[in-house]
């Protein structure tokens, strides 16, 4: 039955994480960056579940549960911030949010 090795899942998670990272670092739209970060979180979750399977320990699944809750909170606050920024600057292009410079 268990013909797929757990390390494949891990590798897939790493790949998803790498893709998410590229997205977070290259996109200029704040929302898109946010989506990429969700992708990275998701990859981390996948790793946790894979290890829970590998080590036969449910703690990994519980951590995923908490990560989801935190991600929800983060999404709510983050999107609220984007709305606030948009009111002020009329844009959510992070390249234009560069006041913290010399």
């Amino acid at each position: 039955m268990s013909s797929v090795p757990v390390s494949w899942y891990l590798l897939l998670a790493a790949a998803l994480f790498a893709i998410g990272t590229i997205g977070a670092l290259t996109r200029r739209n704040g929302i898109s960056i946010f989506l990429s970060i969700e992708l990275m979180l998701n990859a981390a979750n996948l790793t946790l579940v894979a290890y829970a399977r590998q080590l036969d320990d449910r703690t990994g699944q519980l951590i995923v549960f908490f990560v989801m809750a935190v991600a929800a909170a983060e999404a709510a606050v983050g999107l609220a911030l984007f709305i606030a920024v948009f009111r002020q600057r009329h844009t959510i292009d992070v390249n234009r949010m560069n006041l913290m410079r010399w």
Partner: protein
Amino acid sequence: MLDLLWLIPILPLAGAAINGLLGRRFPKSLVTAVGVGAPLASLVLALGCLWEYAQGSFPNDAFERTLYAWTAGDLSIPVGFLLDRLSSVMLFVVTFVGFWIHVYSVGYMGHEEGYRRYFSYLNLFMSAMLLLILGNNFLVMFVGWEGVGLCSYLLIGFYYDQPVPPAAGKKAFIVNRIGDFAFLVGLFALFAKFGTLTYGQIFPRIAAQPGLVLGEYVPGFTLAAFVALCFFVGAMGKSAQIPLYVWLPDAMAGPTPVSALIHAATMVTAGVYMVVRSNVLYQLAPGVSMFVAVIGATTAIFAATIALAQTDIKKVLAYSTVSQLGYMFLAAGLGAYSAALFHVVTHAFFKALLFLGSGSVIHAMGGEQDMRKMGGLGKHLPQTSKLFWIGCLAIAGIPPLSGFFSKDEILHAAAADHHWVLYLVGWITAVLTAFYMFRAHYMTFAGRFRGTHDQEHHLHESPPSMTLPLWVLAVGAAVAGVVGVPKLLSFGLISNWFHHWLEPVIAQPQGLEAGEHSIGVGLEVGLVLLAVAAGVGGLFLARSVYGGDRGFARELTWAQRFPFLHRLLENKYYVDEIYDALIVRPLAALSRFLWKVVDTFVIDGAVKAGAFLTELTGDVGRFSTTGNVRNYALYFFLGVILLFWWIAFA
């Protein structure tokens, strides 16, 4: 009443605090009430304490009370007050003279700005001086010592909006500091050896071990000699002895009552008090004592000669003070401690009288101090003239006024020890003293008026608040001598009551009886006659030169006849100029070097170099801070990768 001894210094302090801190809206009468009331309360309390002290009997004739101990870790300094034979004398002089000078100030300072400030400082001075006297250990004395120095500084620079007084105050403070440094070294030495500074513990212990040395740090000195020397250097500063006397004449820039109280009657005698207090040390160090006597005699004659040619009435009195302080140290150095203190007492009366008299003159002249512009004031200021005359007689040593007895006792002490050179110096100084004092009197009060018409129109006798203290002090100056009439002159009835009063506090050197018996009666009578001759001779010499209407003209011809000598004396032997060239200028040059080169170039340069490097780093590094969040995130990610590599593979 003795339980309230501690209140004596506290009351003037309270007065100073009330006037100084709260008195901003006080009416003038209230300021006066507080400013004069506090010393009056102190005087009354002091008299009560003295009465009780004289009645009662105490162990070692000393009433000692520790108020509390100032403790820090293992160190514990008791803050206590001591009333013994010595401090009782000083207590009386300071509270009595101090109170009357406060009264005088009401009239003298009445029209001045800063009336409240003046009384606040003066009360503070009283407090510090009483602390100095009443402390039962050297640390309390030192606190008072520094306190009077501070008040002296504040009061010399009282007219701070004029150019001279602040500079004079600064000079006084700095010169005093040199002496204070030595005083402190002496205190440290004592403390290092005994672990305490209380008189009652130190003196018996040091007397028990005369050969005690401090250690290899000061070779060639016993502990007693070293400490005695340090203390004397401290006294040099405070009591204006060569070479640290230069501040006292300049201190005349302060108000005249201040000159009378601080720079004549009380503060400057603190050094004498301290030496007498430490007489145990000095008796264990004959070499240092001799040094003290020589310095005292030198100062006495040196200052007296300068006083001959001064034209500022207060400067004459200032050099006179320096000279008389020299007498006191001469006596102390010769071991005649009671004579030294006796002269302190009589000097306090007559010099305060003279200063206040000169203040009355200056007041009448509208601030003019130059005697060349005075003359003939006797007509306009009859009371002042008479009282000043009494002061002159007293300081000149004309019997039976007080100065005669104290000065005679000092000269007698020199003769009794067969120090004939010192005796001669003292005698010549006595002649000079009489001469310059009567010169001042004749130039001021006799002859014709030489000032402007306006000034002549303004001349008036001073108000009663100023003349009353003069009368009181004149009585004191006249009769204070009776407490110290020697056995010979009272035909055996009294044998120097003052001397016996002080006996318990003055250790008797072994094998030396009291000086009175060491020379024959015939010689003693001769010495007394010589002393009288000195005073009277000086008086008549001055009269012959300056008396009459043409007195001032003769002063000018004298100056033309001995131009070099006159210039030398008029310019005070150029001592200030010499100090300026030898010490002040090199010091200023060194300071300028440290400022311009070391501070500006080296230290500031190092700081600036640091700032420049930081700026350079920032200039280069700021290109990495683009303000773009994505760039920062990328740096973060690269850092994470590095960390990850390090954790996983390194």
